[in-house]
């Protein structure tokens, strides 16, 4: 196989491998934002989820308990966000930043003892077992959480379109006064949306510590929780587009390592910056002072 195919293969595999956490965080954020709240604390949920999953997996011996525990912790953080951000005279962004710091703070504080020991990790499904090539085998080794994320994306799209709760969430996010007139409790709807959203972000965190890279370190996230917020804008608040955007960001992340693996050393660190550059480009393209964004929930972070 020549190096072009090697690089392409590696990038595609990287899209799946690196895109999974983006997928969970962005789906969670998409759900939260659809209800009219913007939660920047997703980064905190991601880190707290990563730490919790690793610790619980280490103590219980089962990585799946870790994933569940991470989800629980994420939902608690989401509850905290929902409560704080719906108090009078607070602001989503400020509360989000506070929770980002809080979430990472508790993760670092309780996570110190788990940096050294190794916990049981999530298994990969060897879809490339038919091939002799170790590269193909490695590329097609896919974490079950990715498929779970894939299902979640399609489920969420259906949920928002065709269920009572989905319609209520959209009403709350787009026109709170209409939702109130329909007797929908904004508080309840937004609390559940924030909890579910934060829980999903924490599952994304468990993927980081339990599959790829597969260890607990404080630098594990690299701001992925924040990038996922940009990604939701890029995806126009559409869960299926979140999937596409996550894969794109994941792919961008793996350009550097893939090129290095193929023996191309030039600009390694520059290539590693590509997801961040992509974030900036998305922001510049989609933000305009003159027009509001199509697809954006009408009441997003308006404090209404």
């Amino acid at each position, binding site marked *: 196989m020549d190096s072009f195919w090697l690089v392409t293969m590696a990038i595609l595999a990287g899209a799946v491998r690196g895109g999974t956490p983006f997928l969970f965080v962005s789906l969670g954020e998409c759900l939260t934002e659809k209800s009219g709240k913007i939660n920047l604390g997703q980064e905190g949920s991601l880190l707290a989820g990563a730490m919790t999953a690793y610790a619980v997996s280490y103590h219980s011996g089962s990585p799946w308990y870790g994933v569940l525990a991470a989800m629980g912790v994420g939902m608690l953080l989401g509850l905290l966000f929902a409560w704080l951000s719906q108090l009078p005279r607070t602001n989503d962004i400020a509360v989000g930043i506070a929770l980002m710091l809080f979430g990472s703070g508790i993760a670092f504080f309780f996570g110190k003892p788990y940096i050294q020991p190794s916990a049981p990790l999530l298994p990969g499904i060897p879809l490339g077992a038919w091939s002799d090539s170790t590269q193909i085998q490695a590329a097609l080794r896919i974490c079950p959480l990715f498929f779970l994320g894939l299902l979640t994306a399609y489920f969420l799209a259906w949920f928002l379109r*065709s*269920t*009572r709760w989905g319609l*209520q969430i959209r009403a709350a996010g*787009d026109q709170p006064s*209409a939702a109130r*007139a*329909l*007797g929908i409790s904004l508080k309840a709807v937004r609390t559940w949306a924030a909890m579910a959203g934060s829980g999903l972000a924490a599952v994304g965190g468990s993927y980081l510590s339990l599959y790829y890279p597969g260890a607990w370190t404080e630098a594990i996230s690299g701001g992925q929780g924040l990038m996922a917020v940009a990604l939701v804008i890029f995806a126009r608040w559409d869960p299926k587009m979140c999937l596409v955007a996550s894969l794109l960001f994941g792919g961008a992340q793996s350009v550097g390592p893939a090129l290095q693996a193929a023996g191309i050393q030039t600009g390694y660190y520059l290539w590693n910056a590509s997801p961040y550059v992509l974030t900036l480009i998305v922001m510049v393209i989609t933000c305009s002072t003159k027009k*509001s964004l199509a697809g954006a929930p009408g009441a997003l972070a308006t404090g209404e």
Partner: protein
Amino acid sequence: MTLIPPENLERFTQAPASLDLYRITKKFGDFTAADEISLTVPPGTVHALLGENGAGKSTLVKCVMGFHPATSGEIMVGGHVREIQHPSDARKYGIGMVYQHFTLVPSMTVTENLVLSRPDVPAAVNWKRETARLEEFMATEAPFKVPLHKRASELAAGEKQKTEILKQLYLKSRILILDEPTSVLTPAEATEVLALLRQMTVAGRLSIIIITHKFREVFSFADDVTVLRRGKLAGQGKVKDLDRDSLAAMMMGGTSSAKPVPSAPRATTSTSSRRTALRVKQLSVLGDNGLTAVKDVSFELAEGEVLGIAGVAGNGQRELMEVLGGQRPAATGSLEAHGQPYHGTRRDILAHQFHTLPEEPLRNACAPMLSMAENIALRTFDQPPQARWKWLLNFRAIRKSALPLIEAYSIKTRGPDTPIRDLSGGNVQRAILARELSTLPLKILVVSEPCFGLDFAATDFVHQKITEARDRGVAVLVVSSDLDELLKITDRLLVMSGGQITYETPTATADLAVIGTHMAGHG
């Protein structure tokens, strides 16, 4: 919230749709917003609820709708006393409300909006079945058609209003409360919607309470009328036994009858002989969504003239207004004041004495946290005596210059140091009007919806001030969706529709029907 089984819903909605309110009182702390108000709506009739702002109309209907339960009093639906503690109770008894501000979710289609409004939205919605059901409803029961697949944000105001009414019929409401339903419609749309509702009451399908301040609607549409004033019942009766003067006397409390603004003396000299103060040349403006909101608009405004721009809200007036006020860049075209290019900078504003009074002044023309005196000084604070060397502010002078204006414009406030956001809407409007009109060399004045939400007295006052300014030789442009207001105070009228000026007429010879068709875009 409990869901009602369909068979119960059927039972309630089949009940004769009469509504009796018996001595309803609503207190907020020490303040009595509605005081022992009783009224009766017999089945199949229209009852008008009339009153100035703050008279207690909304408070009363919110009690009926269960938004805030009444402090005391009884509500009877179909002859039975009913406890209404929550909006779902009102819905259970077949009472529905159409709000002044639309309660459709803009990003959802009409179908989605209708299904969402049901008390028993299925956990998982089968869109195919719901669509089929709605199509059948539209074909059999609905008195008018709306496009089911369109998003609410794509509907015109009239279609939205119709959708709101359809929603209530779809929910099988038998008693309908309409809160100023025609404020966003063209005269033709208003007549159409009201006529359809009238038909449905005559057919015995609905009873209606309509909140309004338009006498025309009371006389052409209602059977009975209740007038509220300051939370109390000011009068009640059959519409056919009453006339305009007695209604106005009830509203104003008998002491000061609603005196019509002395109709403005129409321009005696032709406009062409006077100097042009403002010239708008082929102006195009983009809206928030990036689409063209104002398209190729040109007009001239002469000194000593009141020019009106009529139109249904949302046809580009706001964007035009924002360009005139320097808040939004023009895409193409230009503005000229007194023959010179005008860019809306502070220097231009001062040089041409070009003042604007945008709609919703608290949001668009105030610094809400600053005191009233400081807000009044926003035009002059950098000029002596309010500032020394153009930068050192003299707060005592700012305060002092506000005092005579508070007096002259009878602004009700605790004092010049009150933050302006603590003032009521009418008083904010007066304060900003004081700011914009009090500078003596004022030459050009542009106002938008100057009387929105004001009571009779305040409306008269604003109209009088505008007429006075006109008589001083000020060039005045009034943008308003209230046609009656424009007919009263303007010398010349333009009609704006779809972002364009579609019609022009001297007000003295204006034909309401022709203006209406142009407002609706059928000109």
